[in-house]
């Protein structure tokens, strides 16, 4: 097991398991919804992370994804639409000893709460954002979202949408994000792995889950997740390893000038040495951005940890400033404050 850089959160003295995190509430998502697999991944990863179970905190906004806290036996707060990231900012700053997890969707964090999403990332507050991207508004029954592909027919776009969708990865990196990972809801193992990596990362971690909404946007990620195509439309990237994919592991990605290019190993003298070796820790987000933008049909979608760069976190800096102020200020209690500056006695 990796050593956690985060020393502030108390670890459990006993070994925990899945059952420690199952709540007594009935799970009310539709049968076949991708959220069930995300819940299973969380139940897998929390015991692995190994913090005291009382030190986990789940925060959510509104939407199907945001019912999540009720189903996990931790401290939890179900907020209001779009504000999960703002509420969680207060939680983490007020108590940095908590491992804060945010369950949010493409409506909650990309639309109504877009402002809070970019600012929590910019500040690098040490929380973990699990972004359920099903490219549709599910709870309000099928209106398009900011990630719905252009041209999609939905309840509010009978002739097809005329909006350019966000790619969440671009938004994260544009907001100077320090951690971005992507997974698909059909792969619990991968989700568990990237969630673990997110927990290890000091700073705002965003995990985009390509999630299926079986009722209102079924197979919206089909081009990426369908069994027949997934070997050629997904690339599982790993730190320190060359970018190889395909059913026969014979395709790769190289940098041709300033552009990414899909190449076939063995063709035109291409070898593994020509391929990009993934470095998730590099500070410069340039290549990370290019990887985050890859999408079929010309490229496979990058899954795994795309970026995990070290920067100071907001919550650590808050504590540092308080420590410094306490050691240098003459005002150490409110009586000191009340009597500071110009005061005089009247008898």
């Amino acid at each position, binding site marked *: 097991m990796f050593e956690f850089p985060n020393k502030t959160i108390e670890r459990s003295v006993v070994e925990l398991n899945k059952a420690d995190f199952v709540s007594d509430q009935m799970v009310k998502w539709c049968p076949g919804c991708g959220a069930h697999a995300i819940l299973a991944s969380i139940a897998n990863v929390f015991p692995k992370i190994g913090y005291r179970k009382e030190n986990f905190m789940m925060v959510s906004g509104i939407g199907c994804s945001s019912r999540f*806290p009720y189903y996990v036996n931790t401290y939890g*707060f179900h*907020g209001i639409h779009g*504000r999960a990231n703002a509420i969680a900012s*207060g*939680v983490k700053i*007020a108590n940095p000893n908590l491992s804060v997890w945010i369950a949010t969707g493409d409506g909650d964090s990309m639309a109504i709460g877009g402002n809070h999403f970019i600012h929590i990332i910019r500040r690098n507050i040490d929380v973990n954002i699990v972004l359920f991207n099903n490219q549709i508004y599910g709870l309000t029954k099928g209106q398009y979202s900011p990630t719905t592909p252009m041209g999609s027919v939905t309840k509010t776009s009978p002739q097809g949408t005329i909006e350019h969708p966000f790619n969440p990865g671009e938004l994260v990196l544009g907001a100077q994000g320090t951690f971005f990972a992507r997974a698909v809801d059909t792969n619990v193992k991968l989700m568990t792995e990237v969630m673990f990596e997110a927990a290890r990362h000091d700073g705002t971690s965003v995990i985009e889950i390509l999630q299926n909404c079986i009722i209102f946007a079924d197979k919206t990620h089909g081009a990426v997740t369908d069994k027949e195509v997934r070997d050629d439309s997904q690339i599982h990237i790993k730190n320190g390893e060359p970018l190889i994919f395909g059913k026969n592991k014979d395709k790769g990605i190289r940098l041709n000038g300033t552009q990414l290019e899909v190449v076939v190993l063995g063709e035109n003298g291409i070898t593994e040495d020509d391929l990009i070796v993934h470095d998730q820790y590099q500070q410069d987000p340039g290549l990370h951005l290019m990887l985050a933008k890859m999408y079929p049909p010309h490229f496979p979608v990058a899954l795994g940890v795309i970026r995990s760069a070290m920067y100071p976190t907001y919550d650590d800096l808050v504590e540092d400033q308080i420590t410094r*102020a306490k050691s240098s200020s003459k005002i150490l209690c409110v009586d000191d*404050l009340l009597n500071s500056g110009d005061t*005089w006695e009247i008898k």
Partner: protein
Amino acid sequence: MSDQTNFIEKEDVVVKFCGDSGDGMQLAGTLFSDAAALLGLDLATFPDYPAEIRAPQNTIAGVSGFQVHVGRKKIETSGDFVDILVAMNPASLKSNLKWTRPGATIIVDADLFDEVTCKKAGYLTNPLEDDSLNGYNLVKAPVTMLTRNALKELGIDNKTADRTRNVFTLGIIYHIFSWKLDSTVSYFQTKFKKKPQMIEANKLVLETGYSYADTVETLGSSYHIAKAKMPAGRYRNITGNVATAWGFLAASERSGRPLFLGSYPITPATEILIELVRHKSLGAKVFQAEDEIAGICSAIGASYTGSLALTTTSGPGLSLKSEAMGLAVMTELPLVIVNVQRGGPSTGLPTKSEQSDLMQALFGRNGEAPLVVIAASSPADCFNYAYESAKIALEHMTPVILLTDGSLGNGSQLFRIPKVADLPSITPPMAEPNDKDYKPYKRDPETLVRKWAIPGTEGLRHRIGGLEKDNGSGNVSTDPMNHQVMTDLREAKVQKVADFIAEQGIVGAKKGDLLVVSWGGTRGTTEAAVEELQKQGKKISLAHFYHIMPLPKNTHEVLAGFKKIIVCELNSGQFVNYLRMKEPDFKYTQYNKVMGLPFTVTELVAKFNEML
């Protein structure tokens, strides 16, 4: 310095400094009030400035003023009419003359009264030359020229010199009162520690102004104000916004709950944010959020986590926070929302004061979302009411809105410094670790308050949120009967707070001909007006309300003692309509003003006389 023998003994004097915004009038007023405070006078101040940082020069729109009322008697307002007016330019003279007492001393910078500036202010002729000011004691001081000349020997250019003209006028004022210059000089020494030349320059200009005043015959005699008779204790000068911030810091220390402020800058509330962020040594965590909504939502997150959570704003920001206030009501978490009211609606009058957010504070949320509403009445008592708001929020697990306003927030007053240990204790209802009986919405049968279980505590993991809760278990519930029960409980819980607040006080007899009712920042004026009429033997009393929701338990009894009731407020009648709803047995007359200005004692006395 000068040998003043010819004193006029005064009870109180109102001084106003006004000029272009950027002329340093706010600073001159502040330095003057600090000097007065150190000399043992009681005082109240009222800054009056435009929303623009630098409005067009020499226009009425750009006039910035700072009024100071000093006296040996108890000073309750910043004063209706000005006794000594400093007017740096024609625009500031024009906009302030109607508030200046006949026979008042007017000090102008004569160098700034030319054809162009007079025209910009809307004067057809130069008021210094057309005899229109004959009824005043006019001092035509060549402030610009004398300041520049004085600083020439220090090698200071005219542009820099002009920035010290405010200090020159301060010198004149100090001469009028025969005050020493020490406190102001020591301010310069601290302020310009790294620029010794500016210490020298400001000191020189201050002395030049003082000496100049010695040569002006029209100034005649000097004023003398004896020390005010105030209760013994240690005092300081404080603005309402700073007092608010300090009240919360005291509540945090006394309750043992760490302070968290989530806030977005907005006039005139920003100073609370600025003040709290200075006190990290007291453990205050201050988060300047990306918007008003994030301000309150981060505070709600911090509250769930166990902090004394605050958000500060003004009217438009309160609108943005409405939905989140409902969340705090539903989750029954402690939270104080400070609304430093300004003129509305919309952006309205950002730098002017009004009491027009009362209905919004009481009812401005979706659903039935009762919360506690408290209003402070003076800059200094912002400390006490901030403290009480925090105490009620923490002990009753409820959001509380604290209403102040721009005049209170920016105005200053003398403040008798309390000892934190003497303040009332604050005991939040913390849940004990591993409490087998803990349920998120299990209530104290007496107060109806639920327990506060803080993340990290062993054996208390639970989930809450904005969906309706089952009473007791706190699970999501859509049961119709439960919703009725919870709606009633939320209301009853807030009403129960009435058992823990002070009874409604009365200034004057409990029975009489006329009861004046006021609330919030108007107390100084309504009290002064009522006392003036009481001295004349009129049967008039004042009931000034601090607790709006819930109302004090004896409210009915207080109102019942009088033949007539008049409710005075700086809006179109919001508190009076609330009283009509809550206490419908009485007939209320209302007196309202929505001009972005405070009441004057004169207008209130006239109105009350009409009714008596």
